[in-house]
């Protein structure tokens, strides 16, 4: 979670939210949240689990989000 926050703090183009899945079950269902942390970029579920900083940036900066 912290990497997402750090990324948002470092770039004016990035916003980041933690969402407590059990409190927002309808939203969590719509994102197929099964295990946590589940990372969703621009509204599309991407992956589950913590990853190193370089991998995190590789994934969120992937051309798929252009």
């Amino acid at each position, binding site marked *: 979670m912290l990497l997402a926050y750090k*990324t*948002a703090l470092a770039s004016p183009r*990035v*916003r980041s*939210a933690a969402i407590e899945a059990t409190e927002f*079950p309808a939203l*969590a269902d719509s994102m197929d949240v099964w295990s946590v942390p589940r990372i969703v970029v621009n*509204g599309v579920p991407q992956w589950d689990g913590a990853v190193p900083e*370089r991998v995190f940036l590789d994934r969120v900066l992937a051309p798929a*989000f252009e």
Partner: protein
Amino acid sequence: MAIFPPEDEERVRELLDALERSVELLVALGPEEAPLPGARDIDFGAETQRVVSGLAALSERVTYRVEEEPDGFDRYPAIAILPEGGDVGLRYYGLPWGYELGSLIGAVLEAGRRESSLRPESLERLAGLERDLTIDVFVTPT
């Protein structure tokens, strides 16, 4: 009101002493989604307010305010983490308790830094970002 055991409170107080700039926490309250069946009967908004006020009590550099349905929030309760009072897009949706209280503290510590703790090469890559990104991370307190 205390939200940590005494030994943890001292540790969090020490961490917050490292803040280089002020951090404001905006607690946004409003209509809440019905929790899962069997979830404990908790007033999530009131508890969120209690946690945030307890955290703010540990540092002069951390302040908080509470608003009903302010602009810029999708659901409630929520917390905006505002470095020097500015909205840079950091949110926590829900009650930060258990393991996730650590995420909120981590957000405050990072927001309280004048320089990012990301690696220089990461900052370089982010500087070249030419589109908007919204990163949502679904978490649970355990």
